[in-house]
């Protein structure tokens, strides 16, 4: 059973939460920092723990410095089929190499949830598609994106054509690559962005937790 009790200044690492009995301050703090709902937060800790039960403690009072490597995270069922899973995990990891502490883990699913605002999602989407992390989506980034999307089924000529089209459509300052301003402007006009992009079904988490605990 999870024990997360009283809350100190630094929220996550000093948190203990009772299932069934929550201090309202704890709930408020959770809501203040994440977009997930309270019970989803329990589910998240459960999921984080079950990936490496020997390493991840149940008790977070002592602020353990635990990080899970990328290989474990990208094998989660919610991310397993996603072609951008490595990039997603890298974008949220603090050291840039893909290992996530629990903070980063919750951060990731907070941004991926339905309730995160569009602007925040746009920022992280830009990070995800920027493969060489130079803060621009250049032609090579686009090629990598396309190859991941179509599993390298398109011919080289088609890929070049599509990349040219994308840059032609979205690049506004004429430098041949997409900066964040171009990306944000393009995203604001894409009607399905908020619905389709960067949204995992959080209820999947909770239901999996219920399945595990019964």
């Amino acid at each position, binding site marked *: 059973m999870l024990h997360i009790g009283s809350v100190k*200044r*630094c*929220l*996550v690492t000093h948190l203990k939460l009772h299932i069934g009995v929550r201090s309202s301050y704890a709930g*408020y703090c959770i*809501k*203040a*920092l994440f*977009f997930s709902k309270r019970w989803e937060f329990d589910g998240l800790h459960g999921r984080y723990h079950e990936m490496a039960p020997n390493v991840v403690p149940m008790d977070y009072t002592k602020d353990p*410095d635990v990080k899970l490597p990328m290989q474990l995270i990208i094998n989660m*069922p919610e991310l*397993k*089929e*996603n*072609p951008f899973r490595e990039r997603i995990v890298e*974008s949220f*990891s*603090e*050291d*840039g190499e893909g290992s996530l502490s629990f903070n980063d883990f919750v*951060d990731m699913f*907070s941004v991926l949830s339905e309730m*995160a605002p569009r602007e*925040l999602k746009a*920022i992280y989407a*830009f*990070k995800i598609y920027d493969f060489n*992390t130079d*803060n621009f989506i250049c032609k090579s980034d686009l090629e990598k*994106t*396309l190859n991941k*999307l*179509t599993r390298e089924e*398109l011919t080289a000529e*088609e890929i070049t*054509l*599509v990349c040219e*089209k*994308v840059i032609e*459509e*979205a690049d*506004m*300052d004429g430098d041949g690559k997409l900066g*964040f*301003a171009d990306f944000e*402007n*393009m*995203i604001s*006009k*894409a*009607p*399905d*962005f908020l*619905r*389709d*992009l960067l949204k*995992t*079904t959080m*209820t*999947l988490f909770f239901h999996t937790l219920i399945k595990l605990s019964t």
Partner: protein
Amino acid sequence: MSGLGAAAGPPGWRLGSSGKEVFLPEETRGAAPAGFLQELPSYQSARRRRAAAGGTQERPAAPRGSAGLRAAEAWGLEPEGDGPAELPAREHPWCMAVKRRLRDIQQADIKHLSEWKQWKIASSKSLKKVLNDVKELSSYLELWRHDIHSIEGKFGTGIQSYFLFLRFLVRLNFIIFILMFGFVTLPSILSKYGILNDSFAKIPLKNIEPHCTVYIPSDNKGLVYFYTYLKDLLSGTGFLEVTSLFYGYYTVDTEWLSVLRYNLPLAYLLATFGYLALSLLWIIIGSVEGFKQNLVHDEDQFQSYCNKVFAGWDFCITDLNAARLKHRSLQYELQTDLEEERLKRKIADRTMKEKLRIYSWRILTNIIVIAVLSGCFYSIYRATVFSQESSNVSIRHDIRTDSPNLIVQYLPSIVITLVNFIAPQIFSFLVRLEDYSPAFEIRLKLIRCVFMRLAGIGVLLFSLWSQISYCATDKCKACGYNYELYPCWESEVGQEMYKLMIFDFITILAMTLFVDFPRKLLVTHWSCKPVQWCGLQEFGISDNVLDIIYGQTICWIGTFFSPLLPAIATIKYFIVFYIKKISLIHTCKPAARPVRASSSNFFFLVVLLIGLVFAFIPLGISIAHIPSSKACGPFRNFNTSWAVVPDTVLGLPTGLQQVLHGIASEAFAVPFFVVICLVMFYFIALARAHKRVVEQLREQLVMVRFDPLFCTPKVFFFCVSNQTC
């Protein structure tokens, strides 16, 4: 590579390594950021405020990202102005340590404000919390929330939009049923059973030939076979005919509830207009979002590649097969787009001779389409006439026990269903010969199918009316309709609509049970080549949507003649949801060509609107043109159903009468029309102006990037929000 994580503050803000951006100053590790930012008044004032507060900032021992912390601080973590205006900590794209820091600073700053401001902030926060909780709770009460969510996860948003549409129709039909039941059925039932101790008056008929008023419903009397009940249930005759399901039941004219007078005929008519208006309003409100996007963002066509590359992957997919199919569908979509480009160029390069050939071919195919449509309509007409004539003969000779009779009764429905199945196949074959672009091909085929389905209902009704108003004798002409065969013709029309609805439901059930599941069994267990090539069926979104729009149009037309039909429609769509869901999960493969949710939603609602507008026509003709039957129903005393309204208006006080007459006269209508046109032109001009402004802003955005005064858009935004620039 340390660009990410704690060191990356806002995008474009490069820390810890040499900045590659032209406009950002060089930074050494951990040093304070650009000097000019520190000169900004907002930064200075915030710093002053912090110093004045006197509290020292605790620096938590964050092991990494100290540079990020300092950068975040310098970037204006201290909120300026009132609390509620600032961005909450969770909406910043920074790592956890920085966000915690920001939250602490925000909370510390709140303590420096006055009591009143603190209370305001606290109360607004708790109000937001309460609203969020209420929203969460109410989302659990939504119908089928979990089912639709799981469908979206497995099959994507295109198919989810079909089920959302189905849910919308269930709600709409339920509300229409409540409306009709509350205003029409309930008062009739209450007065017939004398529950409320009120009195009701059947105003004696005047100026009506007595032979028109004879109506003996063919109720089951005495001992009959059991399957007669089943037959009656399926065709709406017999015991069902005298229930409140059909128009003939409502014979009460006025009810007196102590001193209040309830005019049932007027209520019936107004409830009909009410549900039509309610449906219209609801659909228009639902489609406004999609319409806005289509009007302002028709650059969507212009941006289709970006949308596919960046917003193409559905992050909800967790199933291996679905992922594989999504990859293939994205590849297919991109290839189709490139193909369309090539086709456009080819069309532009066409010679005169080729153009002539193609246009003459298109004229030929359109003639074939018209011929096919005429053939279908004629067959529906003949089927209806035959069915009516046979059932009339059998009624006259009191033969009601043959089972072929049921097939004769259902003949119009069967023919319509066959036509709805065969004609689209012909249309898709023809449209491929016409050499249009793929997108236009789909639209053209859909328009033809929609027209055919709706016109099929129209032809059925027209043939019914031609039967009803066929008058050979003078006696018949006195009544205005064929009183011998159709003493209560509204109930007859109601029965036809009822039969159409039941048969539609049976068809959906039968197709799922006898076509989808056997196909799945065949494909799974028989590995013969042609069977495997046929494969599992795809969930055809547009076909299914046209089916339910057809059903809903029948419901709209039929509710006037059969007030409880919306209840049947609600139950039908409720069951259809589960049937379709089971069929989708167990027998369908995900579609290779996904449909975009946003354009689908708008398209469904537009076609539904077409169906509704089409439903106005037969209703308008029935209410205003065809004489109402004198033997049954609430409009026995009136020439037509519409006549109750002028009658009521004459009973109103004179002043109100004059006002109403004035509104209905030409002197009012023409200027009103002119004013509406002016308002419309104004809004069109406004929309055009806005589009032009959007274009100009886009150009300005390009210029801004090169203007040294506005380094990065974020700084620009920061400056604007501080009103310092």
